[in-house]
C-alpha cells in the first residue's frame, strides 16, 4: 500500500471518528433537548395539579362558584398538557396513560359531586357516603396524578443524566479512538516515512561525501521505496560515470604527460641543432666575413635571425608547457600591486615607448601569484605593444561587473582588432597583425587562457580596429 493510500485511510479514519463523535454528541443533544421539553411539560403539569388540589379543597370547603370555575379552568390546562404526546418510552407512556385515564374520570366525578347538593338521597347517610366516596376518589386521583407527574419529571431527569453521561462516554471513546488513530499514524509515519528518510539522508550524505558504493535498497511498494530504487539507480549511474571519468582522466593525464615530455624533448632536441646553427653561422660571420659578399652576409644574417626567432618560439613553447604543469599555489593576491610591478618592468625594458598606466587600486583575487603575474605580463605587454603609434597611449587595469560577478580587465587604446577573428585570438601562435608591425610569437594569449582556465575562470576580449582592445577575465569564486 502506498503512502498516499495510507494517508487517505488515516485521514478517513480520523474524520470518521470525529464524525461519530459529532453524531453521538448531536444525538445526545437531541435527547437532552427532548427530555428537557418533557421536564418542562411535567413541571407545568405538576404546577397545575398543585393548583387543582388547591381549588379542589377550596371548593370542598366553600362550595363556591368561583372555585368550581377555577377547577374547570385548571383542568383544561392539564388536559391540554397531557394531550401533547412527548412520552414515547414504554415506562413514560404507561404513566401518561394512567394520567389520562384519571383525567377522563375527574370531570365526571367532580360534576357528580357538584350536582349531588341539589339531589335527593334515600338517607343522609347515603348522601354522606356518596359524597365522601367522590371526594376521596378526587383526592386519590389527584395524589396519584401528582406522584405520576413527579415520576415523569424523574424519568425526564434520568434521561438527561443518561444523555449527558453518554456525551462524556462518546467524548472519551472518541478521544481514545482519535488517540489510537494518531498513534497508529505516528507509528506509520515513523516506520514507513521517517526511518526510510533518515536512512536516505544518511546514505545521501555518504554519497555526497564521495562514497558512491552506498546502496539504499529500501523494501516495499510505496513512494519512498520507489524513491529508494531511483536513488540506487542514480548512484549506480554516478558510479559508472565516475568510472568512465576516472578512466578518461587517467588517459588524459597520461596524454598530458606524454605531450609535456614530447614538448620538452622537442624543445631540447631542437635547441642542439639550433645552437649549432647559431654557433656556426656566428663563426662564419666572424671568421669568414671577408670571404662573403654583401648578399652572402645578408643571407647569413637572415639565417641567424631565423634561428634566434626559432629559439624564441621554443622558449614560448616551454613556457606554455610549464604553465600547464606547474602546481597551483592559491593565495590572496594583490592584483593592483602586481599590475604596477609589471608596468614598471615594461617601462624599464621598453623605455622608447612610454604609455600611461592607470591601475585601479585595491584589486584582490585568490589565485596563484606567479601564474597571475605571467598572465598580467602577457596582457599588459600586449597592450603596451599594440599602442605603438598611438599619440597618447593609455593602458588601464581595473575591475567591472560582468553578469553579476567581478571581472578584471586590461584595456588599451591601441590598434584593436576585428572581432570577426576573435575566435582565433587565444590559440597558440595565432596572430592578427603582421610581425613587422607588432613583433611576437603569438603564444602570449594562449598562455593567458591556459592560466585562467587552470583557475577555473574564463577570458574574453572586446575590440574594434583602431579603437583599442579590452581583455577581461573572471576567476572562479571571485566576487566583488
Amino acid at each position, binding site marked *: 500500500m502506498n503512502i498516499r493510500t495510507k494517508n487517505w485511510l488515516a485521514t478517513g479514519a480520523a474524520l470518521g471518528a470525529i464524525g461519530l463523535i459529532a453524531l453521538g454528541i448531536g444525538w445526545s443533544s437531541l435527547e437532552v433537548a427532548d427530555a428537557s421539553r418533557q421536564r418542562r411539560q411535567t413541571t407545568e403539569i405538576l404546577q397545575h395539579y398543585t393548583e387543582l388540589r388547591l381549588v379542589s379543597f377550596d371548593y370542598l370547603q366553600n362550595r363556591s362558584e368561583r372555585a368550581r370555575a377555577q377547577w374547570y379552568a385548571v383542568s383544561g390546562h392539564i388536559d391540554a398538557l397531557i394531550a401533547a404526546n412527548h412520552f414515547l418510552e*414504554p415506562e413514560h407512556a*404507561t404513566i401518561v396513560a*394512567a394520567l389520562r385515564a384519571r383525567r377522563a374520570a375527574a370531570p365526571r366525578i367532580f360534576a357528580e359531586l357538584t350536582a349531588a347538593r341539589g339531589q335527593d338521597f334515600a338517607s343522609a347517610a347515603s348522601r354522606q357516603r*356518596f359524597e365522601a366516596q367522590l371526594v376521596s376518589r378526587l383526592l386519590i386521583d389527584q395524589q396519584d396524578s401528582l*406522584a405520576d407527574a413527579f415520576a415523569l419529571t424523574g424519568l425526564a431527569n434520568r434521561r438527561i443524566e443518561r444523555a449527558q453521561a453518554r456525551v*462524556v462516554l462518546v467524548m472519551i471513546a472518541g478521544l481514545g479512538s482519535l488517540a489510537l488513530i494518531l498513534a497508529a499514524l*505516528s507509528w506509520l509515519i515513523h516506520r514507513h516515512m521517517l*526511518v526510510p528518510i*533518515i536512512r536516505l539522508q544518511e546514505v545521501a550524505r555518504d554519497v555526497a561525501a564521495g562514497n558512491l558504493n552506498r546502496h539504499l535498497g529500501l523494501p516495499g511498494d510505496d513512494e519512498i521505496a520507489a524513491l529508494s530504487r531511483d536513488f540506487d539507480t542514480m548512484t549506480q549511474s554516478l558510479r559508472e560515470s565516475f568510472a568512465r571519468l576516472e578512466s578518461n582522466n587517467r588517459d588524459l593525464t597520461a596524454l598530458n604527460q606524454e605531450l609535456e615530455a614530447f614538448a620538452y624533448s622537442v624543445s631540447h632536441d631542437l635547441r642542439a641543432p639550433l645552437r649549432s646553427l647559431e654557433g656556426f653561422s656566428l663563426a662564419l660571420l666572424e671568421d669568414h666575413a671577408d670571404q662573403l659578399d654583401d648578399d652572402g652576409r645578408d643571407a647569413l644574417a637572415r639565417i641567424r635571425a631565423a634561428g634566434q626567432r626559432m629559439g624564441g618560439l621554443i622558449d614560448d613553447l616551454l613556457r606554455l608547457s610549464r604553465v600547464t604543469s606547474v602546481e597551483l599555489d592559491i593565495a590572496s593576491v594583490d592584483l593592483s600591486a602586481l599590475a604596477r610591478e609589471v608596468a614598471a618592468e615594461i617601462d624599464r625594458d621598453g623605455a622608447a615607448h612610454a604609455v600611461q598606466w592607470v591601475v585601479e587600486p585595491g584589486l584582490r583575487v585568490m589565485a596563484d601569484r606567479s601564474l597571475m603575474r605571467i598572465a598580467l605580463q602577457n596582457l599588459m605587454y600586449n597592450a603596451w605593444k599594440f599602442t605603438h603609434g598611438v599619440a597618447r597611449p593609455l593602458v588601464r587595469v581595473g575591475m567591472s561587473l560582468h553578469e553579476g560577478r567581478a571581472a578584471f580587465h586590461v584595456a588599451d587604446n591601441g590598434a584593436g582588432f576585428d572581432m570577426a577573428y576573435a575566435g582565433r585570438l587565444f590559440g597558440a601562435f595565432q596572430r592578427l597583425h603582421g610581425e613587422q608591425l607588432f613583433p611576437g610569437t603569438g603564444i602570449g594569449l594562449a598562455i593567458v587562457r591556459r592560466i585562467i582556465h587552470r583557475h577555473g575562470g574564463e577570458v574574453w576580449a572586446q575590440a574594434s580596429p583602431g579603437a583599442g582592445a579590452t581583455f577581461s577575465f573572471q576567476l572562479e569564486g571571485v566576487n566583488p
Partner: protein
Amino acid sequence: MCSEPAPGCAGGHMHSRALALWVWSLVAALLVVLGAAVYWLTPRADGVDASRLERVRIALPTVPHAALLHIAVEQGYFAQQGLDVSIVPVTHGRAAMEQLRQAKVDIAAMADVVLLLSVLRAEPLAVAASVLNVGNDNAVVARRDRGIAAPRDLAGKRIGVSFGTSGEYFLWAFLVRHRVAPESVTLVDLAPNQIAQALAQGGVDAVATWSPLSADAQAALGPQALLFGEADAYRMDFLLVGARAYLQAHPLVAQKLLRALLQAEQYLLAQPQAALEQIARRLNVEVRALQPGWASFNFRVELRQSLLVTLEDQARWAMARGYVPDGPVPNLLPNLYLDALLAVQPSRVSVVH
C-alpha cells in the same frame, strides 16, 4: 539536541525510541482511562454470591394481580438478586394472609383490603410495596332473570362475595357509587372458586368479584348474565406484605425482593406479550381469559400517598361492616415499610414521611 542520526550522534535512535515509548505509554494510559470510564458509566447488576443466597418464603396467589412476582420467579430475578425464594401458591390474597399469619411464609402478596382488615385486628404487618394499581378490575355479575337491569336493581338482592376481600369492598363502593344503600342487600360469603357456580345455580342473584373470576361467572351463567363494572368506585392496590418485625430485621432481603420486582416490571414493559403468556402458563389459564382485564392493570412497584387514603376509606368501611369496632381511623403510616423502596428507588415513594 541531536536531530540527525549520525555516527557520532547516537541520540537520534534513542530519541525516536523514547518518543515511541512515550506515544505507546500515552495510548496505554488513554485505554486505561477509557476502560475505567466505560466501567464507571455502564450500569450493571450487583454481584451475586450463589453460596450466600438468602432464603425467603413467599405466599403467592395464583391471580394475575401478582404478575410481577410470577415474572420474577419465571425469569430468575430473585436468584439474580441473591434470594433463594420458595413459593407457596395460594388461591387468593386472603389465603396468602393466612399463611403469613401462621408464620408459614415470610412475605405474602394480597389486595389492600386483606391487609387492612388484618392491620385493624392489630396484626403487626407492613407493606413493602404495591405491585399493582387497577381501577377497573372488580365487577358485579348479576342475573337478569332476578329482575336486575341496572345497578339500582340490586337493592334487596342476595349477592355473593368473598368476605374480607377486595371483592367485598368493591361491592360496597359500587353500591354507594350507585346510591344503593349497602344495608339493603344480603351478602353471602363464598370462596372464590364457588362464586361462578353459585351464580349459575341461582344460589345468589349476583356476585361481586375480581377478574378473571368475574369473566368466569359471566361465562358460567351465559346470556342471563349482566356485568357491571365501575372504574370510579375503587382503585385496588395489590401489595407485598410482611411482618413488620421481619422486614425491619431483614432490610437487605426486602431490598433484593424489590429489585427483582423492578426487573420484572422492566421486563413486562419491554416484553408485554411474552410476560402475558408466562402469567397464563403459571396460572394455568388461557391467554385470552386474562386479556380483558390485563390492559387496565398498572404494574408498578411503588408506595403512594393515595394508598393511605384508600386504606383509611377501607377502615371506615370495615367499621361500618362490623369487622372491627367503630372508632377513629387508626394511623396506618407505620404499616408502610418505606425504607426498602427508599433505598432501592426513592423516586417510587410518594408517601409523605
